[in-house]
């Protein structure tokens, strides 16, 4: 076996990470470069949620419409830490006395960590409780039950925010922290490094192989000694934790809103995986990049028609390349095979 650090997936991950690192350093030059920083932040978010979904969908082969719940939980955790804990005034005050009207990095790190811990705790709790009930189901039955999960948690959180928030049930506006786009970029970057390497190491671990066996034939996996039920719950929870990270990142940047729970978030994650190709690590990354590029170019040209065109694109991909882009590349260019882990 080749050393992990020389495997294609690891090399590709590292190249992508380095790309974002360089973009971040070049970012603060002028107005145009700052626009690219904003694009880069979005792109990290899209790859991030795609890879979070990949663990349950691409690796284990379970289609979930419920992963947006975890993005929502992440953003709610940030909203909870920044707003609902009644620290808004403290945070705004810290920002005022801080250099240039900005809260200190130490305090930011504290709030960031608190959000992470809260999000991980809630995500694991929900994933285990819900997973215990619904991961006994397979295929379409599982997928449908996760839609229910989405709505139940969304209304639960809506109830909490409605009774406790000064902004009503739909959103929690962040207090002024004086943060710039560059700060948000680096916060995304930290979570991006964690997400991409966790996703890759899961893929090549014993755990990842077990998930592959479940995806390909679950009964056969069980017969060969894979504890399929436990593996599925672990995958569901890990996918949830990673998804919640991206809710946190976005909520620091744009404040919490109920929109993070909405089903279309799940569908974006799902589309990224389908377009890229189920069963691989590279697939969801490619799918996310393509999805982001398409969405961005459509949004700037055709505006409201974006969703229609994206929908049509998905139909075309599923109809003509059911194995996604990675599947297509593998067929056309067998020599690329080993790079498409």
């Amino acid at each position, binding site marked *: 076996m080749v050393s992990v650090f020389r495997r294609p997936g690891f090399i590709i991950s590292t190249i992508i990470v380095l790309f974002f690192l360089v973009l971040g350093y070049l970012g603060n030059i002028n107005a145009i470069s700052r626009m690219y920083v904003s694009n880069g932040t979005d792109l990290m978010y899209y790859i991030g949620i795609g890879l979070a979904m990949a663990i349950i969908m691409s690796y284990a082969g379970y289609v979930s419409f419920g992963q947006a719940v975890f993005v929502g939980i992440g953003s709610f955790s940030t909203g909870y830490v920044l707003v609902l804990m009644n620290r808004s005034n403290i945070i705004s005050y810290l920002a005022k006395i801080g250099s240039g009207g900005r809260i200190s990095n130490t305090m930011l790190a504290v709030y960031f960590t608190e959000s992470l811990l809260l999000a991980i705790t809630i995500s694991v709790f929900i994933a285990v409780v819900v997973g215990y009930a619904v991961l006994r189901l397979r295929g379409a039955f599982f997928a449908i039950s996760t839609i229910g999960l989405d709505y139940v948690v969304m209304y639960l959180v809506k109830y909490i925010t409605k009774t406790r928030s000064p902004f009503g049930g739909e959103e929690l506006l962040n207090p002024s922290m004086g943060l710039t786009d560059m700060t948000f970029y680096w916060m995304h970057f930290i979570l991006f490094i964690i997400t991409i390497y966790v996703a890759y190491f899961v893929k090549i671990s014993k755990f990842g192989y077990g998930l592959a066996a479940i995806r390909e034939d679950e*009964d056969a996996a*069980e017969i060969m000694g894979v504890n399929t039920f436990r593996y599925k719950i672990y995958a569901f929870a890990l996918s949830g934790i990673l998804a919640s990270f991206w809710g946190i990142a976005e909520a620091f940047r744009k404040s919490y809103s109920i929109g993070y729970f909405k089903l279309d978030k799940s569908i974006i994650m799902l589309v990224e995986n389908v377009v890229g190709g189920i069963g691989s690590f590279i697939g969801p990354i490619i799918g996310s990049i393509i999805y982001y590029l398409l969405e961005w170019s459509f949004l700037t040209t055709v505006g409201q028609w974006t969703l229609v065109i994206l929908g049509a694109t998905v139909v075309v991909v599923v109809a003509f390349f059911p194995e996604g882009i990675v599947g297509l590349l593998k067929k056309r260019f067998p020599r690329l095979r080993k790079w498409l882990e």
Partner: protein
Amino acid sequence: MSILLGVENLVSGYGETEVLHGVSLKVERGTITTLLGSNGVGKTTTLWTISGILKAWSGKIKFNDEEVTMLPAHHRAEKGLILVPEGRRLWPQLTVYENLYLASFTRRAREKFEENLEKVFNLFPRLKERLNQQAGTLSGGEQQMLAIARGLVSNPEILMMDEPSLGLAPKLVQDIGRVIKRLRDEEGLTVLLVEQSVQMAVSIGDYGYVMENGRIVLEGAIDELMENSKFKQAYLGM
């Protein structure tokens, strides 16, 4: 000879439908025991219930003097109770090597992975040539070899094989039969064989059970069965 696997009054089925109405059988260590019968009498259901994928409704399954009736399938695999399922059930998108690697998922298999892999390549040199090929792209015979190889790599105490000759050319059926015999003679492997090719089954088996409608109706050493005119008429057309 000691009994490795003992099944007593096993009742099981799918949903509301009872398929097995009290099956009892014993498999002695180091022998090939065959389970015969025509289509739809419950042979596969018996194996799936013993392996744990299907839950037993009632009855007892004893393996190595230990009751395993309530254990989940992956725990039974950990104890060396391995099923090579009907229709191969490989992981088609994964390569031959990955299929074999994954078959060593249990601790008992992991410890002997290299050794068992060597054995398997001795038995099926063809698989060694196809190591990096996707399992789904192998020919039918090769897929069956891989299915058996996968069973062997998981380091079985008993290997239950469900229709290993299904859909294979007569010559390949003979080959598979020879391999199973060799495993018993050289490795002392215990086998519970379900086989539609009765000719092959009786040519390598030591003991046989005949099933009809979810029950065992006839049993005996293969030599005895061969002297039973009813059996010969029904299953060998003699």
